[in-house]
């Protein structure tokens, strides 16, 4: 134990003899464990991320994700953290702050951003490849192959990473890349960051030199799940090997690697021997005369070349395959980019054993000088915190949820509960979306222009393409949506013809699929009858068919804006009430003094909740409906009419908020009944019966009293609704809902105590102490609130969000 901690976030299990990614992770693990107590967290999307055996240095845990991607779309391996993932990550983190934090691969940057701020600040991000260049390179390859859809996907991924890299350049001090060529570009783009070149290296043991076999054999090693390797294998089998066989009829061509299954038929048809997931590569290398790397796309540096050098084999490669390896063509490797050139280079080595031996020897020396990792250090016993997957969901989440009492990492859980991290990430995601769309570099590339042309062609000929697809397409596989499709079809309320006629954007898609993909989310009706039904339901809920019954209304203005604003809010209230056909009683706090317009009653109270409490009770005593209003804003003329109609439709048994306009709170509501989790306090209608039952609002909550009131109302059997046709402009109280101030933070803590949510309370207390200890006031409240009515699972939204 060294006493210092290092934290490694990696997308794969570090493995000395795994694929390129695993080997690079292994190199990090070896380096970090040499000087620190290493904590490795493997952020795994599927079982392939943790395959491999061998012991890992230090402690390690597995964070299972369902890889939601950005807004539900799996984008370029990016993992979008949510509160569940943050909680799961929290459970795996070391107790002590690490001295080094290494984030392996850019697509884990989102996960890294959820680390405590001081940890995230010192994070070193190892990009390995320049993802933009890599994805563009793959896109070009796919375009060459006519895989337009995949090419567009790769281009989108490139654009995505372009935006991401631009952000990261601004926020990360140390960036690591595998190839010097990539690093040069990055240094030019971002001169203030430390850009480190960390070549891909491999580890021993160094095999003994074995003479090449008598049978001329070409070997290509690569994981066939990676498209550039697929392309290289096909290039070798169908272009290079036939040329070579004309002069070397006895030539054997061997392709070895993981995931060969999809390639078997095609490669075997071209006379290639395929070795799927071989146990021992040493023997395969020993039986090869020449190792080839005809790779034409991808990024970073190619470990397959290093591995060939390690096994004392001469290499023929494309210039792309040796980028970043500082190899001298003709000395360490023979380089050719065309099929004819490649065949010629192979023929040269096969015909000249001395040349082959010299190339192999120099290559091996080059490897040992630059790319050989020292033997791995003695590893500490494994103390795994891995949690096995059950349902493609974060596993540690449940453990975190089940945990009672104060959490082990209050600071981090505080961040989770507050969802401030998530908010920041959402902002980053939005910014990233902007950035990716305006990347000049991408638009300037030939690949992008070509893709645009291809896209045009596809658009122009989409009917023909649709027809072709119908002819050639295999029967659709039974996917995860089958149940949903069946549910829609069986519902009896889906009229496919009507839906198609009403939604011209369907084009060639089946209406049910379109509904599940688009219509459902955009509240589009499924049939004429359903549209009428929902229309009627909404109309009933809004009370649009009702004649307003006479009611007594008290409007309580809590707070003390300037005199001009006092006039505006009272004028707007009187106008809105006049249009509703009623004369309200308006109450304001005594602080208004002479600013209070004529006819407004002043009541003694200090602070918003106290004023609302007093006014509400006064209104209830008079048998009046109470309208709690923030006087910094003003009413839309139709606001009070809409609120009273909805209240009447709900038999005056509902707490109803006017919609904050124009910046709405994102809280979700039922689009037909308009029921919602809680109602905001900008303009809030409180029926008489509720004030009688609940006895006013909680005086200890400055900003979140409406949340508490709403939950209590639901506990007492009242409905809580939002009225989309009643608008209230918040005026100077307008703010971006995503930002939380210290007062709200303190209220959040108090609310959690009131509703007996101990984990959230502990988390918020920790966050308060971290942000501004001065605002922390320990509450001591005896409460009869039912925790089941509260929602602390959505941070300071206190409810699911619409966006």
């Amino acid at each position, binding site marked *: 134990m060294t006493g210092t901690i290092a934290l490694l976030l990696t997308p794969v299990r570090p493995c000395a003899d795994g694929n390129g990614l695993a080997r690079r992770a292994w190199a990090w693990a070896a380096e970090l464990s040499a000087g620190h107590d290493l904590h490795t967290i493997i952020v795994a999307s599927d079982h392939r991320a943790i395959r491999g055996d061998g012991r890992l240095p230090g402690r390690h845990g597995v964070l299972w994700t369902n890889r939601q991607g950005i807004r539900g779309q799996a984008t370029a391996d990016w993992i979008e953290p949510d509160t569940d993932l943050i909680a799961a990550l929290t459970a795996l983190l070391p107790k002590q702050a690490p001295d080094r934090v290494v984030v392996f691969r850019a697509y884990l940057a989102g996960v890294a951003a959820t680390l405590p701020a001081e940890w995230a600040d010192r994070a070193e991000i190892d990009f390995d490849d320049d993802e933009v260049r890599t994805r563009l390179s793959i896109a070009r390859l796919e375009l060459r192959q006519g895989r337009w859809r995949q090419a567009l996907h790769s281009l989108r991924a490139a654009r995505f990473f372009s935006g991401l890299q631009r952000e990261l350049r601004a926020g990360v001090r140390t960036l690591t890349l595998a190839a010097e060529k990539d690093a040069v570009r990055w240094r030019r783009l971002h001169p203030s960051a430390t850009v480190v070149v960390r070549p891909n290296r491999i580890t021993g043991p160094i095999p003994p030199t074995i003479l090449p076999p008598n049978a001329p054999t070409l070997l290509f090693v690569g994981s066939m799940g990676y498209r550039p390797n697929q392309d290289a294998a096909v290039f070798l089998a169908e272009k290079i090997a036939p040329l070579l066989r004309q002069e070397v009829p006895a030539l054997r061509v061997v392709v070895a690697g993981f995931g060969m299954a999809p390639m078997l038929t095609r490669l075997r048809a071209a006379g290639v021997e395929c070795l799927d997931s071989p146990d021992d590569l040493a023997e395969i290398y020993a039986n090869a005369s020449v190792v080839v790397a005809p790779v034409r796309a991808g990024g970073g540096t190619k470990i397959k070349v290093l591995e060939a050098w390690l096994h004392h084999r001469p290499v023929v490669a494309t210039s792309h395959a040796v980028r970043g390896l500082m190899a001298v063509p003709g000395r360490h490797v023979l380089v050719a980019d065309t099929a004819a050139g490649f065949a010629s280079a192979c023929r040269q080595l096969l015909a000249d054993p001395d040349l082959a031996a010299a190339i192999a020897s120099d290559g091996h020396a080059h490897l040992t000088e630059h790319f050989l990792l020292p033997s791995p250090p003695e590893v500490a016993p494994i103390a795994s915190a891995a949690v096995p997957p059950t349902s493609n969901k974060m596993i540690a989440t449940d453990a975190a949820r089940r945990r009672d009492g104060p959490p082990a990492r209050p600071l981090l859980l505080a961040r989770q509960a507050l969802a401030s991290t998530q908010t920041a990430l959402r902002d980053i995601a939005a910014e990233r979306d902007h950035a990716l769309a305006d990347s000049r570099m991408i638009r300037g590339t030939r690949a992008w222009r070509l893709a645009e042309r291809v896209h045009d062609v596809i658009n122009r000929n989409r009917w023909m393409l649709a027809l072709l697809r119908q002819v050639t397409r295999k029967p659709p596989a039974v996917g995860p949506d089958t149940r949903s499709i069946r549910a829609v079809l069986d519902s009896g309320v889906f009229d496919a013809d009507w839906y198609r006629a009403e939604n011209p954007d369907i084009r060639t898609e089946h209406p049910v699929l379109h509904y599940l993909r688009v219509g459902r989310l955009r509240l589009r009706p499924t049939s004429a009858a359903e549209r009428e039904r929902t229309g009627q339901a909404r109309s009933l809920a809004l009370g649009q068919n009702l004649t307003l019954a006479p009611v007594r209304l008290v409007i309580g203005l809590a707070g003390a804006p300037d005199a001009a604003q006092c006039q505006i809010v009272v004028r707007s209230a009187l106008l809105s009430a006049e249009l509703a056909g009623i004369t309200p009683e308006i109450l304001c706090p005594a602080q208004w003094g002479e600013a209070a317009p004529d006819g407004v009653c002043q009541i003694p109270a200090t602070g918003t909740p106290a004023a609302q409490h007093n006014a509400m009770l006064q209104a209830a005593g008079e048998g009046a409906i109470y309208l709690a209003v923030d006087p910094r804003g003003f009413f839309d003329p139709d606001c009070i009419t809409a609120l009273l109609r909805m209240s009447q439709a709900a038999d005056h048994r509902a707490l109803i908020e006017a919609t904050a306009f124009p910046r709405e709170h994102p809280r979700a509501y039922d689009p037909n009944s308009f029921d919602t989790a809680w109602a905001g306090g900008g303009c809030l209608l409180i029926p008489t019966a509720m004030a009688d039952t609940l006895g006013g609002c909680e005086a200890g909550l400055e900003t979140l009293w409406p949340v508490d009131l709403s939950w209590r109302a639901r506990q007492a059997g009242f409905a809580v609704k939002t009225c989309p046709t009643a608008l209230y402009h918040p005026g100077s109280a307008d703010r971006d809902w995503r930002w939380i101030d210290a007062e709200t933070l303190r209220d959040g803590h108090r609310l959690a105590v009131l509703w007996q949510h101990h984990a959230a309370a502990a988390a918020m207390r920790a966050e308060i102490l971290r942000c501004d200890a001065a605002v922390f006031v320990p509450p001591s409240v005896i409460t009869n609130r039912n925790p089941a009515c509260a929602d602390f699972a959505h941070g300071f939204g206190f409810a699911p969000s*619409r966006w």
Partner: protein
Amino acid sequence: MVDNSELVDVIVRIHDPSRLDELGHAVLSLLGQSHRPLRVLVVAQRFDAPDLAALEVRLDRYRRIDPSVALEVIDYARQDGLADARSALINAGIAVARGRYLAVLDYDDTLYPAAYTTLVQELRASGRAVAFGGIARKSVAIDPTTRAALSFGLRPRHPGQTLVDMFRLGFCPMHSMVLDRSRIAPRDLRVDELLPICEDYEWQLRLGARYAFSFARIDDEIGEYRYKSDGSNTVMLTFNADKTRHAMWNGYADLIEERRQTLVIVPEVQLALGLAEPIAGLTIRGLLDRIDQGGLIQSPPDYLAPPMAPHGPDGFAY
């Protein structure tokens, strides 16, 4: 007495008398602006006498709430055969504007309270002619029975950050900008009336080639653009785009490209874009092509040169 040097004239254009509710919401968002003085010019097309009376009644309500905001109606009664005289309505508003600052808001869009305060401050601080803010894009389902607007999603903001981005793509809705008329020649304060669509982008291209723009506040959200499910947006949504509309949009896209190929960027803007030496006769398309070929501008996040001087004697005198 209104101080014209601070006054923002806001042109609100409306073509449909049945959309007074939405107009009311736009006006409500203007009443909520923290900037004063403010003058709202509602330019109405295809409103007959009863419609105009109804419009006045509706606006009277808002006048009662805050009399400090001037709400005026301009009846655009000219019959020139255009379905929506979108451009002409703006020009009609410009003709009667008298404040130093000018803004445009469509009847179905909204602004957050700090919008004009933010952009006017930016214009004053930067000395530039036009300032832009960010606009959130909200998806809204309009219930045909109740006419309730149910917001169900936020879309990613319009992509773009800089003038070069604008030259490539019209990413700034009309209500994302405020113009300082003292820095723009009167001849340029006019929207091309031949364009029923894309008129805003064409105007922005013309102004962008000649005057200094500020995108410093583009990350500050100042308002919302609403994508409505009833297909009433004047954009080419996949939802409402039939073949005719596609053809129309493609036609105007060609026209915009023609503008890119013919509008010459003045030397001051070229220098402000970061070019070492102005290139005589450099068009917008020429600039974009050179950037795409690489090396023309190394790092153009925004204008690098100091702001340009106010316009000369032929500029607007307030």
